[in-house]
Structures are given as structure tokens and as C-alpha cells.
């Protein structure tokens, strides 16, 4: 765990920098407030009645992309520990290669399924 001490120091430094920036901007600078200035920017439209809420439901495609990302990211995560020991294991035998090829086959199968059902076509 000792290797992570500098990371903690870095985290504290970054926090200090963020705090300093936040504090300095809130102190310096003028404060002239107005109804129009504080309304959300929308191409010159500033009447509240003309604006619709932005808390709209997400488009379903984005949810689907998130789910597919989750699946493939987990599969990608399985590759990492395998990759770490693969080269060492070659000195013994090629079992890991066979295992990885079988695993990749199923990953590709999933990819083909996603493509054939056009889950990633956003247009």
C-alpha cells in the first residue's frame, strides 16, 4: 500500500487547486444579475413559457448502448488478467491459448448478435 501514498498526496493537491479556483472566482469578478442573464441559454429565447423542461427521459438507444457497453466491458476485463500471465504460461504449455480462443468465440458470437439486431444503429 506504500506505493499509493503519493497518489493520496496528489489527490490532496488536486483538491486544494480545485478549492482555490472555486474560491478565487467567487471572490473576484463583478456581480450583475438579471432575469435574462440567469435564464438557460436557448438561441435568444428567454421567456419561461417558451422553454420546455430539459429533464426529459433519455432516448432508449442510449440505455441500450449502456447495457451493451457493460457486457463487453466485463468481457474486456476478463482479458486483462489472462493477458498478464499468458506469456509466462507459454513456458509450460498452450492451455491458456485454447481457453482464450474458446472465450473469444463467445465474445464474437455476442458481437454478431448485437450487430444483426441493429442495436447500435443510432440514426
Amino acid at each position, binding site marked *: 500500500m506504500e*506505493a*499509493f*501514498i*503519493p*497518489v493520496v*498526496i*496528489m*489527490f490532496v*493537491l*488536486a483538491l486544494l*487547486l*480545485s478549492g482555490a*479556483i*472555486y474560491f*478565487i*472566482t467567487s471572490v*473576484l*469578478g*463583478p456581480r*450583475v*444579475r438579471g432575469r435574462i*442573464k*440567469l*435564464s*438557460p*441559454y*436557448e438561441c435568444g429565447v428567454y421567456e419561461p413559457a417558451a422553454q420546455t*423542461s*430539459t429533464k*426529459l427521459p*433519455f432516448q432508449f438507444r*442510449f440505455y441500450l*448502448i*449502456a447495457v451493451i*457497453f457493460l457486457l*463487453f*466491458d466485463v468481457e*474486456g476485463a476478463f*482479458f*486483462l488478467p489472462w*493477458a*498478464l*500471465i*499468458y*506469456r509466462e504460461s*507459454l*513456458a509450460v*504449455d*498452450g492451455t491458456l*491459448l485454447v481457453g*482464450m*480462443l474458446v472465450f473469444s468465440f463467445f465474445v*464474437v458470437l455476442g*458481437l454478431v448478435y*448485437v*450487430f444483426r439486431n441493429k442495436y*447500435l*444503429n*443510432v*440514426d
Partner: protein
Amino acid sequence: MDWLDLTIIFVRTAVIYVAFIQVVPIMIWVERKGAALIQDRPGPNRVGPFGLLQPVADALKFLFKEDPIPKEVNKFLYAIAPFLILLPASLVVCAIPIGDYAVFFGRDVLLQVADLDVGLLFVLSIGSLGVYGILFGGWASSNKFSLLGAMRSSAQVISYEIPLALAAANAVMFYGTFNLRQMVFAQEGTLFGFLPNWGIWYQPLGFLIFFIALFAETNRLPFDLPESEAELVGGYHTEYGSMKFAVFFMAEYINLATASGLMTTLYFGGWHLPWITDARLLELLGSRNLLALLQVATFTVKLSFFMIVFVWVRWTIPRFRFDQLMRVGWKNLLPLGLLNIIVTAIVLYLVEGR
């Protein structure tokens, strides 16, 4: 570990952090001058010689501008979003090795913030946290342009994370470690007697995938859909003003620097000079600290090269459409990444297996 060690660690961290932060003003100048060069116009030339003080003037202006908080925003998320991008960007700097080690006060000082055994995993995991800042910033602004920018951004960043992880897995497989420092050590010397022994010769396809995915991860053109200024005003930072707006750009440029450093580390030999080993250099120079200086200089040159490539690409290639972006990520880069892993594994088996 005594107080001297702790002081050294603290000073080292602060110096490297400041070095990565001062990339920001330099990059602002390089980017504007580069754009001017490519578009055949003079660029900034009023403040200081060659407009070199332009970034300073910009920063001062940002500091003295009003920081309005629009009426309908979610105040807490709106306030912390820029810093949620800056924090991961700063933390990733920790893992980048900029040199071997120097000797101060009789101690070996690593020229890297933290020598992490999980270096590459650390970079991948912490680096991807930046998307929360963009998402919160866009959503909390309660502005349609910001929301669209944030949604595009999250879809883009998560889509390109998989090719990035696959290319990284390929590098891990080749070097047999997650430790970035060990990866650099593995790239010392020459290959076939005339090439520098760099990772790119062993995994060119992996480098290409990594390179393209990094453009998407850092939201740079041609993948800057989250802030595409012609369609979305400013994207996720439309509602931001003053220094909070500038923090987004700080984080973007620090990310750019770490991305360039990562490419240098994984594929271009890190701090090593081509064709010559460190032991030989140490003989020639006769001093450990001189060698360390030379290593840092070499690393800086390589990193600057990639930074200039980022600027060059930005002003050369037009932006992708969103469906094109998704198609490149999922239908081209992801299968290519899988193919790359399988081919590398089989070649390694044929060469080294028994």
C-alpha cells in the same frame, strides 16, 4: 520511511503536477498558433513576443469575469462538475513514468509520482471517471444543448473504452506486466540492429487502435461531438462561465498530456533514447543526475511530438457524425481489437510456446 522520504515524495509529486499543469498555457498557445499556421493567418501576436503571453492574458480575463449561476440549475452538481473532471485528470498523472531515477541527498528519487504495480489498470479506471464530470455538468445545467452534449459524450466515451481496454490488454500480454515502469525497461536497446526496440514494432495495430480510441476519450476532434460548437453552442459547458469554464479546458489539456505520455510509455520507449542503452549512457555521462535530466528531456520531446500531432489532427480532419462515430467504435475498432489480441496470442505461442 522517515520525514526526508516523505518530503521527497511531496516535492516530487508537486513538481510533476506543476509540470503537467503548465502544459495547459503552452498548449493553448501551440493550439492557437497551430490553427493559425494551418489556416494561413497570423494567430495571436499582440500580447508579448509572438503572442506568447496570450494564455496569461486569457487566464487573467477568466479570473476577473463574473461567475453566474443560472436560475434552474442543480446548484451542487453544477458547482462540482468541472472539478470532477479535473480530479481524475490530475490523478492519472501519477502513473506516468517520466524518467528512471535521480539521486538527491543520498536517496534515490523516482522520476514518477507513484510506481504502481497496477499502473495501466489505474490509468484506465481512474481516467474513465472523467465522464461523470461531463455528465453531471451537462445534466445539471438544465439546458438542452448541454444535456445533448452530455448524452453524446457518455455514449462516446463508454463506446471507445472497450477498444482502449483491448489494446491495453494486448500491451499487457506482450510485456507481461501492468507496471508502466517495467514496460519502459522492456523497450531498451535496439531491434535487428537498426530499429529502436520500441513497442510499436511489435504491436502496430494495437497502437493504431489505442491512438484512435484516445482521441475519443479525450474528446478531441475528430471526435469532439460532446462540445461540437457548430451544433450544440458549447455542448456540456454552455452554461459555464469564468474560471469554471476554464477548468474544463485545463482538464482537457492535462488529459491530452497524460494520453501522449501513455502512448510514449507503451509504444515509443518512454524515456529511452533510441539505439543506446541507459548503462552505456551512464558510462558516457558519468553522472546519474545528468542521465536523469537527459531521460526527462527525451520523454518531454516524445510527449511534445504527440501533443503536436493532436493539434495537427484537430485542424485537419472534420468532425464525424454521431452514427459514424458509433459505427467506427463498435463495428471497426472493437472487432479489430479482438482480432489483434487473438493474432498476437497465436504469434507469441508459435514463437515462444512449446
